């Protein structure tokens, strides 16, 4: 195990991503395993649509799938091309183009106050400290949150926290926004507001959710099961098939290990 701090300058082998590439992600027989346990297997698909939803039962590989898009995980087999560049070569550039919003805002916010949290994204991109602060305040005002700027993150409500986490990612102006079950702990009204915010964005969206209601206005829905793509189609078609499948399984004795 390496001592901290151990930092080696990255080699200049990086190929420059093309942010406008369409499709932005090309999966070619992509697989992912942890040790000998397969998590994702044999995925071949292309992502280009404006808004893509992902659904699946617990343990189906949804979270790992979306983490591939941001470079948080690297495929262990097959080829993954993101923004026109093989994923392992794009890795260092990916956080700039792909924003990632996690399920629990308490796990995502890095800084004690809202303003610092937003400004961090800008300093990450090389903006100076004071300039970042100023632009962070302006950005908050633009989204109607100027009142929150100086507040400690721990004192915000759940919905405010999640909104700040989304803004903290948006301020980096990504081309793609990945959201991993962002509404799972929010009430109906807050969910609706955040959904509205998401739908108003010019960014491409990939949203993981258990709730079909959140896929209204989406162009495409992927259904993952046991690490494989079970179905790929319009939200309506996938919803019908998914619900039928869940109903047909309810009668069976379900092993606890499948839950």
């Amino acid at each position: 195990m390496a001592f901290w701090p151990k930092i080696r300058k990255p080699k200049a082998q990086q190929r420059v991503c093309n942010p406008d590439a369409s499709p932005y992600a090309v999966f070619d027989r992509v697989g992912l395993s942890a040790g000998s346990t397969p998590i994702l297997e044999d995925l071949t698909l292309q992502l280009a649509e404006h808004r893509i939803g992902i659904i699946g039962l617990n343990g189906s590989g949804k979270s790992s799938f979306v983490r591939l898009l941001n470079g948080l995980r690297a495929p262990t087999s097959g080829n993954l091309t993101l923004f026109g560049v093989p994923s392992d070569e794009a890795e260092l550039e990916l956080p700039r183009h792909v924003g990632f919003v996690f399920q629990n805002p308490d796990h995502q916010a890095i800084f004690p106050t809202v303003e610092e949290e937003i400004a961090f994204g800008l300093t990450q991109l090389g903006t100076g400290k004071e300039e970042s602060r100023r632009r962070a305040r302006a950005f908050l005002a633009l989204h109607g949150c100027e009142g929150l700027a100086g507040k400690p993150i721990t004192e915000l409500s759940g919905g405010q926290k999640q909104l700040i986490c989304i803004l903290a990612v948006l301020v980096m102006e990504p081309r793609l926004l990945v959201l991993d079950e962002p509404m799972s702990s929010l009430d109906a009204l807050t969910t609706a507001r955040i959904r509205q915010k998401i739908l108003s964005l010019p960014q491409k969206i990939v949203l993981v959710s258990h709730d079909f209601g959140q896929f209204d206005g989406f162009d495409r829905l992927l259904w993952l099961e046991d690490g494989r793509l079970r179905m790929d189609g319009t939200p309506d078609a996938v919803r019908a098939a998914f619900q039928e499948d869940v109903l047909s399984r309810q009668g069976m004795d379900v092993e606890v290990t499948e839950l």
Partner: protein
Amino acid sequence: MLPKHSRRAAGRKACQDDRKEAGDDWLSAENWAIPPTDDDFHPSRDLFGPRVSGRPVVLEKKVEFIMADRSLVHVAFYAALIAALGLVPPVALAFLGGVPITAQTLGVMLAGVMLGPIRGALAVLLFLFLVALGLPFLSGGRGGLGVFMGPSVGFLIGWPVGALVAGWIMRSTRELNILLAAAISAAVGGILVVYAIGIPGVAIMAGLSLPKAALGSAVFIPGDLLKVALTAIIVQTVARGLPSAVLSRS
């Protein structure tokens, strides 16, 4: 699985039955192992754990970068833990002569034993840095540069060295039972080393002879022994529930 927050026993009797029945059980390490509810993904296992890979060169670079970030977060985490423990009000136990015991040095011992020598010492240094910057994180709500001019500054200097030694012992006794290893590390690093630096500090700052300074400091040793025991139990529980967190041994 997490305990059900909603389950509230009806009366005192029921409470006691409940404790007998479930109280011991739900606290056991197995129950606190992080359940794989978050889909199939768990960062410490999947992102940072050892991986088998067909493309070692790429992954080597990746793991190294993640390590730096993760270490940074861990160092900050333990610094915050020491700070949070400083907010626990001191307890005075009668059988220890009524000397107030603060929880803060528990954090110092944990940092060394859990993080290993370098990161453990860095965590304590980071904590002291924050105190020096003016945050009232020392037990009793003290902070600022003033505390580094006080008679107990030797103990503050001793903390990072103690964490370093504790982490080093923990790392070099990997074969030993974890409870025993943690107790020895915490006792040697968190008491022996800290007092070895702290007592001369008191002597110099307060113009006392060494034996007098030692006498004045010795009243805190029983409380520190209690913290050694706590450290050992916590480390053992964490080793069962979240083994990847015991970085000194991984």
